[in-house]
């Protein structure tokens, strides 16, 4: 049941291309059939759409606030004009100059975007907002004083020798359609790719992203740089449309308007970016007809923006939710069915894995302090290759702190840890993940904006082929790869997280209460599967768990933490019958 339907997969590849060709055909008919004024305005719509698409990557997909989209456009426009008017390059590239310069301008803008984004590296969304607002104002005044290379006297030639009259407008509209379609296709493809998954993941959880072996920094910077690139392209398109620009074309208030509009429509979605572009251009055009101040459109966007933000929704997801409700219900039903399978499916009883006896993870004198509080004191333990080690202890004993420290999230600890002979000190969480040390979280860190399959591709960093992904999902009785995670309940999401991290085939996987939220029957099924996991995936496992039955049935060795110290460590039977453990963990009767 988990095997992907090959026909469906093929249609996924071709469908966007069919859409693209259709859009270009429609654009041709539109451009040569409609009145000149409408065609000109429609070009503006497309340019706004491209800007919104770029912005959608940062605000929609990656969840940050960026307020300088038109500054990028103005920088792109400036560079394009500079290349045309101040360099001999136009003679070199001839009719293709515009296209070549547009790409160059986009690339330079992207580099500038990187420079701006770099200091806000671990950008909390707000820091990026502060910095981009500043950039918007500074670029505006700079361009105001510096002026554009055209100096309001020269006109920039349009691409491929198109004329600057209404006839040329029609040709240029078609050019804009093609560029827009290419940008939209590229963004669509990127959103479905691993980097797109990284953006979605980072918007949901930075920790989850790093633990999947993806650098949070790279994910955010790439989103911002790509958005700047697309912004630069949009600026070039404006130059081609009106052939002469000044600073008023790119005023910062319109950047604010674009940001708010991007929030309102959800411009990470292609169709919604088009809709946003229509709103952005057509509302002011209508106001112009009625001689109403154009700023009323911004007032409206502001109100819509507040509404969208306070209700935490946008038009795009709202429309989709309404359209796809039936499909979602069907998918939810499929998830239910898969869950049932998980519960009743009987897996052959497997013995508790005993391992090779070689030490894989060696932790020596690990101490973690939060201010004056010692969360972990002098913790030493060894995990042998191929085994499942249980880490137990009462709530607040420091188990999750241990996983955080080994996972690289608490670099200020003392003591050492090494994996397979390699010391872990100094490695960031995503580097540890790549070195074969994975972890799962007690909290839900599975981004709901992806499908199950996309999440597994992301976590395995593309190393698992569709068959391996289907295998890992089936191994844990998880929902099918095509199911969106948003319809999967939290308990099952945690299972998907475990399956994904095992499919990445790390040397060691740290599981932090993976079975919380599962029913008792599911617990037993999970234990059965977990016993086979070390052999099946070649992964050694350390599991934190409250349910002692589960621990008893999967672990060969157990370490008990109490108040941040190792209370007992050894083979299962000895530890569980140790009176110290009994009194610390459950038998508090003796205290009375």
């Amino acid at each position, binding site marked *: 049941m988990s095997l992907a339907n090959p026909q469906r997969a093929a249609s996924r590849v071709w469908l966007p291309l069919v859409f693209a060709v259709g859009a270009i055909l429609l654009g041709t008919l539109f451009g040569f059939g409609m009145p000149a004024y409408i065609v000109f305005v429609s070009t503006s719509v497309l340019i706004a759409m491209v800007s919104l698409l770029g912005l959608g990557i940062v605000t929609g997909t990656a969840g940050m606030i960026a307020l300088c989209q038109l500054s990028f456009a103005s920088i792109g426009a400036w560079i394009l004009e500079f290349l045309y008017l101040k360099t001999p390059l136009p003679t070199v590239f001839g009719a293709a100059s515009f296209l070549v310069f547009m790409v160059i301008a986009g690339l330079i803008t992207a580099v500038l975007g990187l420079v701006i984004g770099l200091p806000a590296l671990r950008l909390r969304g707000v820091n990026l907002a502060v*910095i981009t607002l500043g950039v918007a*104002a500074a670029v505006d*005044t700079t361009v105001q004083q510096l002026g554009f290379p055209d100096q309001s006297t020269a006109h920039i030639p349009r691409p491929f020798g198109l004329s600057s009259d209404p006839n040329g407008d029609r040709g240029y509209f078609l050019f804009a359609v093609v560029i827009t379609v290419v940008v939209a296709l590229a963004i669509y493809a990127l959103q479905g790719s691993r980097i797109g998954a990284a953006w979605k993941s980072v918007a949901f*959880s930075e920790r989850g992203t790093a633990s999947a072996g993806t650098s949070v920094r790279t994910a955010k910077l790439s989103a911002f740089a790509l958005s700047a690139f697309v912004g630069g392209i949009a600026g070039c398109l404006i130059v081609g449309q009106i052939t002469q620009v000044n600073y008023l074309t790119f005023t910062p*208030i319109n950047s604010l*308007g674009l940001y708010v509009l991007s929030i309102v429509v959800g411009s990470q979605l292609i169709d919604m970016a088009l809709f946003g572009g229509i709103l952005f251009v057509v509302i002011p055009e209508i106001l112009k007809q009625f001689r109403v101040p154009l700023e009323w459109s911004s007032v409206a966007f502001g109100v819509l923006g507040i509404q969208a933000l306070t209700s935490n929704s946008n038009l795009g997801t709202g429309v989709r939710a309404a359209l796809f409700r039936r499909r979602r219900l069907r998918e939810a039903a499929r998830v239910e069915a898969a869950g049932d399978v998980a519960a009743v499916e009987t897996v052959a009883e497997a013995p508790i894995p005993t391992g090779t006896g070689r030490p894989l993870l060696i932790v020596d004198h690990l101490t973690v302090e939060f201010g004056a509080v010692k969360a972990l004191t002098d913790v030493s333990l060894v995990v042998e290759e191929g085994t499942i080690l249980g880490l137990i202890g009462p709530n607040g004993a420091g188990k*999750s702190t241990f996983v955080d420290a080994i996972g690289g999230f608490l670099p200020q600890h003392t003591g050492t840890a090494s994996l397979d002979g390699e010391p872990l000190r100094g490695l960031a969480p995503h580097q540890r993940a790549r070195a074969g040390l994975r972890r799962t979280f007690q909290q839900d860190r599975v981004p709901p904006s992806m499908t199950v399959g996309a999440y597994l591709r992301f976590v395995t960093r593309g190393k698992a082929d569709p068959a391996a992904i289907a295998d890992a999902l089936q191994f844990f009785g998880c929902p099918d790869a095509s199911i969106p995670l948003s319809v999967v309940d939290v308990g099952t999401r945690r299972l998907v997280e475990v399956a994904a991290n095992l499919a990445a085939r790390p040397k060691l996987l740290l599981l932090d209460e993976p079975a919380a939220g599962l029913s008792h029957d599911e617990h037993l099924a999970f234990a059965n599967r977990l016993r086979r996991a070390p052999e099946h995936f070649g992964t050694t496992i350390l599991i934190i768990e409250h349910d002692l039955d589960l621990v008893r049935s999967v672990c060969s060795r157990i370490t008990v933490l109490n108040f941040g110290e190792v209370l007992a460590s050894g083979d299962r039977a000895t530890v569980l019958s140790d009176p110290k453990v009994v009194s610390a963990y459950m038998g508090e009767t003796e205290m009375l």
Partner: protein
Amino acid sequence: MNIIIALIVGFSSGALYALIGVGLTLMSVLTRVVNFSLVAVGVFGAYLSIRSAPLLLTLPPAAQTAITVVIAVIVAAIVSGILGWVEATWLSEATTTARSAVTVASLLLLISLSFILFGSQPQPLRPLLIGPLFLVGQVAITKVGVAMLVAAIVVAIATWLIVSHTPLGVRLRAVSDRQTAAELLGVNVKALQVGVWVAVGAVMGLCVSIIGNTAAADATSMITLIIPGTAAALVGAFKSLPLTIIGGLVVGALQGALTAFPSTTQLRDWIPILIIVLFLLWNQRKEVWDVAR
């Protein structure tokens, strides 16, 4: 010598940045928001208040001024209060980013409304204080500049006194520490938060009335003073009021210093950005994650 004079030239604007920064920091600590609309509400109140001038012609000048200022303060407080109410009602548990995003939307709304109502032409927004207080060599220290610095310091000290020495302050700190726990103890979180918005809005309305059109000619360019204000607040990491005041003065002084070199006027507008960038680079040496665990 020139440079020292130039530094002093930047004092007035620096003091204003410091005051805006203090407002931002205060709101960030007490209500978890970076309020991009902070200056906009003050400007909106002040510009709307001068619309009342035709109705007040029969009154003595002093009364005219007083009523105009009161109107400015009330309008700014109300607009700010409405925003605060929106945040406290629908986004009480949202992240700082989401809460701040709302103020971006309201900033857009207020800028465009100001544009429609007040136009882009310079307005006769008379400052309450005119002229220099004293001279340092050839350079005048303006009354407005001193008033802004005094206001920034007064607001900072008053905030500190209220927060650390009154029952109201205990509640404010409790809400700032753990909002949910405070609610569970019966603290009226919403009223406190809206109260902070109203108070800060009123202060901004008053301050914009005092500075009048000395800092910028029209409403829109005045609203953009929020940018050097955020730079100042960032120097205090949106936490420390004294550092924020110093930050504002430094941004102003640097901008003033650059006036000594006419060839560098381009750079002036980039000073806040540079400060922001340098500060962020310094502040983020350590790894920080989105959530504590």
